[in-house]
């Protein structure tokens, strides 16, 4: 799945360094955590309620993906992420595979897919 094009890797590297890493730092400064990473002996339970929506079906039209993503993150009070929605989607046509990838998803990091 990884890019074999050095220029794409360069673009991805730049995006990570210039957009993702600063956003991560800003979120960290604000004390935002997306999940816990270790057990908590004092917690009575680790379950969370499922966030049910009235309609379990969504229409995710590609032309609205950035807008929906931005609204999703803005609704969670995450401006650092909301600001990333459009740049991420602007990046997509350049780094997303032009053809469907026939290779296996890396079994080692499949949570990323």
């Amino acid at each position, binding site marked *: 799945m990884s*890019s074999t094009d050095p220029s794409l890797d360069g673009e991805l590297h730049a995006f990570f360094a210039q957009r993702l890493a600063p956003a*991560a730092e800003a979120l960290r400064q604000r004390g935002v955590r997306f999940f816990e990473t270790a057990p908590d002996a004092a917690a009575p339970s680790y379950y969370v*309620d499922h966030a049910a929506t009235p309609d*379990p079906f969504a229409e995710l039209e590609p032309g609205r993906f950035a807008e929906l993503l931005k609204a999703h993150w803005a609704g969670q009070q995450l401006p650092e992420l909301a600001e990333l929605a459009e740049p991420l989607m602007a990046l997509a046509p350049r780094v997303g595979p032009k053809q469907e990838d026939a290779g296996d998803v890396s079994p080692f990091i499949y*949570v*990323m897919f």
Partner: protein
Amino acid sequence: MAVTVLGISAFYHDSAAAIVRDGQIVAAAQEERFSRKKHDPRFPRHAVNYCLEEAFIEPDELDAVVFYDHSLLTFDRVIKSLLSVAPRGEEQWLKAAPSVLGVKTYIADYIRDALKRDVKVLFTEHHLSHAASAFYPSPFAMAAILTMDGVGEWATTTIGIGDGQAVRLLKEIRYPHSLGLLYSALTYYCGFKVNSGEYKLMGLAPYGAPRYADTIRRQLIDIKPDGSFRLNTDYFGYLDTNVMTNERFCELFGGPPRKPESRITRREMDLAASIQKVTEEAVLALARHARQITGCRDLALAGGVALNCVANGVLLRERVFDRLWIQPAAGDAGGSLGAALLASHMKFGVPRKMHPAGRDTQQGSYLGPAYSSGEIRAFLDRSGYPYEVVADAAARSESIARTLASGKVVGYLSGRMEFGPRSLGSRSILGNPLRADTQTVMNLKIKFRESFRPFAPTVLAERCGEYFELDVESPYMLLVAPVRKERCLPFDLAALVNSNDDMLPIVSQPRSDIPAVTHVDYSARVQTVHRDDHAGFHDLIAAFERLTGCGVVVNTSFNVRGEPIVCTPQDAYRCFMRTEMDLLVLEGCLLWKEQQPKLADDQKWKEEYELD
């Protein structure tokens, strides 16, 4: 007007399509069976075409296409996971970006382009798809639902309830805390392939002792009394590197991961036993909580962890619920079916129809393509392969049964292909369970796979209790049960294992009067076959019983290691000729190995398939 919905799972692994008309399952199939690429993640164009053909419709007659996963929420999770560890994790970003920024951002358009129609495309949640696949085909009017896998969007485990035509999720455990990921991490560490080797680890577990179970409980996972759990991610690599485990994990278990294909040692056996034990504890606790919060007497299961048939057997024997039903395509392929069923009932309001006799509506999971005798004979005639037509079904069963009774191995293609990872008598390799050498012969000369791996029995449903301590049907080979005590023979596994890491002497020791299907812990992964589900297969086993007194056959998937299960007669013939099977049955046609011409230019066939 009928409501027809196409469900699709794709772009991760095990792509599949399923079609449902008025709430009834018409067809379902995995793409790998057509493309011949194991766990094929690509858009399931062949499977979609097959489903549309089976339903006799054009794409514009579909009421909707439903994708099994909410790609925006998955995108959300991937980005947040990266930001949680940044500036670490860049390596992951470089590897994952082309995928997450690629097709997953324009799935709806991709589907429309593939179908060449402006169809309505809906998205639902990954675990809701699993839950729907578990509940709707089950025989239960109302049931608790438990789904467990690696990860969906955020949920990794959910508890829900199905009632009539509604499915609701109530509670969940979220990424990065996941039973599936924990099991996969151990799978990787023991030298097996993640996403396919989990089954091997489960099969290895009975050879070992759970001496690492306390370490796993103390360091890797905290399971609360209510079954909820959390991992200590300090020991895992999947948040910030490109591998499942890290140095701390290796230190915990005394060294680096086992290299794939290297010798399996006591450490791997004991790790397998340990993670299996902890998984069973977690599944039991989750199920107890599901019973408590739903008040339901029956449980429906799905998600990749539900393919752990050993844990399912423990769950059954503990009687947490009165009845269990497990979706046979419990992994992501089954999400296509769940998505289609969910939309049929909850979007389009199709009333749910139960089976009139109280059985499930999965139709034995025989939901794939079938091939007529005419098609098969045309193929054989065109290719010049010698065959014998035995049109009379009873005579055919007798002939095949005689072959099995003599210790020979049979490739068997009969009826519609199975949906899900198990062969259930439509695309199966069959053997004689009474012979102690069957396991070794089938593993090494036919499947070309590891010698320790056990084979499953298929038993006449009405005879099940005579062989196994199992008082319910197990039509999908998803329950492991003990072989009846009076059939078992003395066998000192500990002494054998301690004396030698080589497993061949162990697996060759008879452990019961059906040795080929009795695992080293006297267990068996049972399939019961009901005549209503597959008359031909049932009658074949009945014929074998008349000859031998044994109503059981060995049943393993019709493929070699790394190959998808065969779909067509052509696939079956190729596999037959590449292995030491003796007889190939293609519906009414019988092909004997010694009469066949050698396959031309086929010396390098093993290079076609990546080892699983």
